[in-house]
């Protein structure tokens, strides 16, 4: 377990005058399984975008000793930060195995790249087992079920050897069984990774979160254990009547 913490200080993201993330401070300790919740437009996804270099932001985001802001996306990824998207983005034309193989290979040399894949790297094999996709390894990812795509994405993060996983609504649109399976997967992954999950589904959060941060209008509203957050009066007000919000929107 590598022990880099994610430290966000005074993070601010603006689009044409609209401030999507407004001075957020956030500390995520190594090994945490943190849920980011908040109503639509709270800035959850933008926060993740900023951390992963997709949008420009001011303030500071440190991962261990490394400042992330200002680095290009692929450099941040190489530091060991991986993410998924609200709508699963896997390479639909490639097989499950190829998807994982690509994820495992960012550091490969030119010679390896120019040769055909012959053996399956051990990490890929392990990820296939972890995500339960071993039987589907030769299927094009495009034909996978929605849930399977999400698992494949998580599997890709695992073989990528990331230390911090940022998952954007991993269970949105999933059936109950798939949710359970995803939750178990998260738990397994969380044993030796730091995980941040953006989620709307309160039941899911209650079942699997170790800690929770509530965002509202670009600011941190509340932070703590599941129980603490649920007891927070402000949070209740924001979520009034929305105790278990329908998932699937951003």
């Amino acid at each position, binding site marked *: 377990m590598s022990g880099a913490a994610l430290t966000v200080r005074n993070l601010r993201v603006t689009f044409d005058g609209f401030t999507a993330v407004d001075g957020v401070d956030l500390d995520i300790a190594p090994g945490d399984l943190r849920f980011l919740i908040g109503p639509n437009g709270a800035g959850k996804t933008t926060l993740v975008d900023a951390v992963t270099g997709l949008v420009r932001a001011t303030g500071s985001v440190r991962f261990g000793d490394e400042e992330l802001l200002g680095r290009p996306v692929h450099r941040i990824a190489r530091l060991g930060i*991986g993410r998924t998207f609200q709508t699963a983005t896997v390479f639909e034309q490639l097989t499950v195995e190829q998807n994982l193989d*690509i994820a495992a290979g960012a550091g490969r040399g030119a010679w390896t790249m120019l040769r055909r894949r012959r053996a399956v790297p051990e990490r890929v094999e392990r990820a296939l087992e972890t995500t339960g996709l071993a039987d589907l390894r030769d299927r*094009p990812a495009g034909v996978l079920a929605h849930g399977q795509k999400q698992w494949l994405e998580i599997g890709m993060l695992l073989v990528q050897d990331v230390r911090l996983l940022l998952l954007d609504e991993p269970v949105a649109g999933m059936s109950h069984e798939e949710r359970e399976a995803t939750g178990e997967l998260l738990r397994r992954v969380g044993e030796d990774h730091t995980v941040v999950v953006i989620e709307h589904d309160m039941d899911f959060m209650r079942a699997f979160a170790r800690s929770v941060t509530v965002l509202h209008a670009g600011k941190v509203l509340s932070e703590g254990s599941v129980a603490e957050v649920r007891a927070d009066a402000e949070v209740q007000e924001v979520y009034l009547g929305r105790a278990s919000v329908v998932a699937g929107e951003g």
Partner: protein
Amino acid sequence: MTTTAPPGPASATTRPRASTPRRLRAPAAFLLGAVLLLGAAPLALPDSRLNLLAKYLCYAIVAVGVSLAWGRGGLLVLGQGVFFGLGGYAMAMHLKLADAATAGERLPDFMLLYGSSDTLPWWWQPFADPAFALAMTVLLPMTVAGLLGFLVFRRRVKGAYFAILSQALAAALSIWLVGQQATTGGTNGLTGIQGFFGYDLADPVNQRMVYFVIAVALLLLMAAARQLFVSRYGELLVAVRDSEERVRFLGYDPANVKLVAYVVAAGMAGLAGALFVPAVGIISPALIGIVPSIGFVIGAAVGGRASLVGAVLGAVAVAWAQSTLSDAFPAAWTYLQGLLFVLVVGFLPGGLASLGALRRTRRRAPASVRAAAPTTSAVATASTKETA
């Protein structure tokens, strides 16, 4: 991060082997192609037809690169004429200098007529050296492509912009070449090339030699392109086409991935241009502008952009149809060309190659579809997701 998978069954699982007939398909097809190109065609065709085929095979070499960059990488390379032209001019400059030397002249013939100076321009001088000129036929296009690609891909200029910029570049280069008549031959281009590294091109035997060189080059480049297609890089390239952003989050720089495909395709176009010169005896700005540049893409599109063999056959077939049908029915051919393009690109993006592949996949429906061996059913849907 590890760079290679640890070998051996202890730590890695060997991937399930494909059945023997499938494994042999590519080498068998290659052998068949070689027999046709190197054996059957030279025996069956008269000199003039073989010479035409040599010209078409040059277009096919461009199509190999187009198939890589566009079919696999989703980069619509609408400026291949530029690279074809750079390669062609590099070769023609050397051959003109060699011709002049044979004739005992100080300057190539057109410079004597149109030029204003008695001395060879400095940028012509190194081309007197055959090794330099040969290297330049490939390196010059690759350098230009590398520079442009670096600028464009790094700034994440969108696919549409890239296509338009490529076209503008093609137009600009041809205008520039036309404007430099004294040193480039202007609209005439470099013509009347007589020798090819000491061999007289007027001799039909030597023309056959040129054909063999071109055919072998095509076969070798197809083999090399196929190796790229099935390599890890080939998979990564498809991944970049499918979702550039996702690849970036995996720690790759997609700009570099695209750049490699673009530069390799440019090198192939350059080589094709270089080989075109001895086969046809001319290189001119008319082969470089917007229309010929689109022409290079047409063949690949019609045959099947993502299928190597499809693209090559498409390029040859379209070139053949162009020269055969445009004679008899100039107007009808233009309609047909336009219509073919509309129908194939619009409604059969995998090209004609996907017709066969569709049937094949239907036959063995449950079998796994491996994108590494390009069954084009995947491609038909692939092209719906271009990197924009």
